[in-house]
Every structure is written in structure tokens, then in C-alpha cells.
């Protein structure tokens, strides 16, 4: 009874192609872990971060950014003027790219349609806005967001090559919205 099984096992282990594919397969979780938790390349759509990202009107040019994910949910890693990608609080299947305008315990001056003029950011929350102030769905619509929704921090533009070295702090949206700083 064991004979055919043994020969089958022998055949499988001899089969180089199968071994190679198993080894490749075993590295898939490693790659996934790296992309999930350390670093990822993400495409940024839309005009809300213009002129910093996607500066041109024409649709064909879309910026791809290097997204740093490791520890990016920690309050001490989220600083004012960082660009972050996060899950939309209004629809978790969508991802937004915005700039952090205020961190926990800061007070900010809001804009329409937020119902209150000044808001204090609670613990482990951030206030996010697009650079392109008038074409942006941001914290003025959905309020401060939990750090837990942050996916990662945009470090640099890596595609297209013409945009290499683009300054991610080219424009930083509205000025003087901080009423009180936490530090």
C-alpha cells in the first residue's frame, strides 16, 4: 500500500519545477508582509493634493509614491505637514491621500462645511486636508480621523521619472489654521 505513495513522494521531490514553485510560493507571505507592514508603492489619484502631487491637469500623468508603513500609526510618527494615505472614514474601501494639518491635542480653525469654528483634536487623531483646498473632501467634511485609519506616509515620488525628487512640501494648503499647538 505504501509503495505507490512512496514513489509518488519521490517523484514529487525529484521534480525540480514543482520544488521551485513551492519555494517561490513560500516567499509570497514574506513579500505580502513587507508590503502590508513596511513599505509599499501606491498610486495617487485625483487633484486634491495639487500642486504637490499630480501637478498637471492631463489625466495620463499620475504620481506613484513610496509609502512608508512601518509604525506609521504611532502618534509620534505622524507630524504636521506629512502626507498620509488613509482609509476613508466614510467608505473603508476607498483610500484618501491628504496632508496632516494638525496632530493630537492641537486646536484648528475649520472651514465650511464643518459645523464648529474651532475644534480640538482628540488623543491619537489627526486633522487632514488636501493642498488643493477647494477640491478636497477632508477633515472639514468628516472631522478628525483616528490614527488607526492611517495606511502609511508618502516619502517620495518614485514614478514618473520626471517627478523624481519632487518637493512634497511644495505647498501645504491653508495657512494659519492652528489656533493652539500641543507642544
Amino acid at each position: 500500500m505504501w509503495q505507490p505513495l512512496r514513489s509518488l513522494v519521490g517523484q514529487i521531490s525529484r521534480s525540480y519545477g514543482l520544488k521551485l514553485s513551492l519555494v517561490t510560493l513560500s516567499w509570497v507571505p514574506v513579500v505580502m508582509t513587507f508590503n502590508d507592514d513596511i513599505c509599499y508603492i501606491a498610486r495617487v489619484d485625483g487633484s486634491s493634493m495639487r500642486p504637490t502631487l499630480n501637478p498637471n491637469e492631463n489625466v495620463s500623468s499620475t504620481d506613484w509614491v513610496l509609502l512608508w508603513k512601518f509604525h506609521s500609526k504611532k502618534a509620534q510618527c505622524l507630524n504636521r505637514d506629512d502626507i498620509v494615505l488613509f482609509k476613508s472614514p466614510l467608505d473603508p474601501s476607498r483610500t484618501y491621500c491628504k496632508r496632516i494639518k494638525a496632530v493630537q491635542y492641537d486646536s484648528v480653525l475649520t472651514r465650511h462645511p464643518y459645523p464648529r469654528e474651532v475644534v480640538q483634536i482628540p488623543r491619537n487623531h489627526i486633522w487632514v486636508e488636501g493642498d488643493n483646498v477647494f477640491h478636497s473632501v477632508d477633515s472639514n467634511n468628516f472631522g478628525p480621523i483616528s490614527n488607526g485609519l492611517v495606511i502609511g506616509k508618502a516619502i517620495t515620488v518614485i514614478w514618473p521619472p520626471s517627478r523624481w525628487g519632487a518637493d512634497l512640501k511644495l505647498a501645504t494648503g491653508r495657512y494659519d489654521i492652528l489656533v493652539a499647538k500641543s507642544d
Partner: protein
Amino acid sequence: MTTIARTWGKTFSYAIRAVCFVHIVHNHVYEFTETRGESMLPTLAATNDYVHAIKKYKDGRGCQIGDCIVAVKPSDPDHRVCKRITGMPGDIILVDPSMKSKVFGSETVGNEKLHLPEDPIGCSEDYDESFDSYIKVPKGHVWVTGDNLSHSLDSRTYNALPMGLIKGKIVAANDFNEPFWGGSKGNFWGFRKIENIYVDEK
């Protein structure tokens, strides 16, 4: 020397693949994890209760009112909470109807006597107010409360929970306070299913 290095290299390579495999399964498929705290009594015990969470329900996909979920705590991304969904996006719900129905008066501690609310109908204004404070659960959010309404930090404090923070749905639990076989909760180490508690009312 080289053989030792090679052995170490191989061990390391296997270890990293194994760890990442478990990590990916935990994040995307299934997780078996400990829970602590009184907030989900009597569904989950305060200590030593382990839950089976299915990650398909991440981001609230397919979650319904009455489901038990595990989510990241909005005020602290390092902590996770187990709660019951008691309101879906668009629902009109009372913020905290249980607030004023103090089953246990503070004086009970001294008297060791259980007070039931004497006459809940038509009493103080505060009482009426808790039955007249409605909220509409915002889009993309769920309202969560602990099964133990007396000891739970939940939506009543931190408002609705963004669905993006939901990590999975709890489908079953094992209570290791129970004997290995034949406990009161379930045969095998207190294994029982965690069901949806939202039911038809006759």
C-alpha cells in the same frame, strides 16, 4: 565554517517565511486571540477567554447589526476592542437608553441588597431624556456597544466607529477557565459559537 553559516542561513530563511505566513493568515484570514475585560460579559468572560475571529469581515464588509466584532480602538491604535454592533450606517438609534436604568444603586454595596428600579415610568426628567436622545449613525460608521452596558467604553463615549477600524468578526470562543472536556459552556474547553443577537420580536 561555511556549513555552519549555511545552516544558520537556512534556519533563518525558514523562520522568516513561517513567521510571515502566520502573520498573513492572522491579518487576512483567521485569528485566535485572547480577550480581556468586563465589557463583553456575559458573552465573553473577563479573563482567559479566547476568541476565533474571521478576517473576511475586515473593514466591516458583510457585518450586520448584532454581530460581535474586533476593532482597533479609535483613541489608541495599539489596542483592540471586542464589541457588539448595535447600529449600522443610516440607522436612527438612541445614544444610551440604558444610561438611567440603574439596576444597581450605589447603596447596594453597603446593604448587599439588590435594588430594581422602582417605577421606571414617568419619573425624573433625566430618565426621559435618555429615551429622547437620538443619533443617526454616519455613513461608513457603525455604532458599537459592549454587551455589558455597565462597564464598557464604547460608542457612547467615543462616538460611532469608522468601519475601516474593524479587523474581523468574532464567530466563536474558547473559555480556558472551563475544564478541558464537558464544561458548562461547551464540551471542548468551553467552546461555543458567538451568534448574532439581533432577532425578530414576537
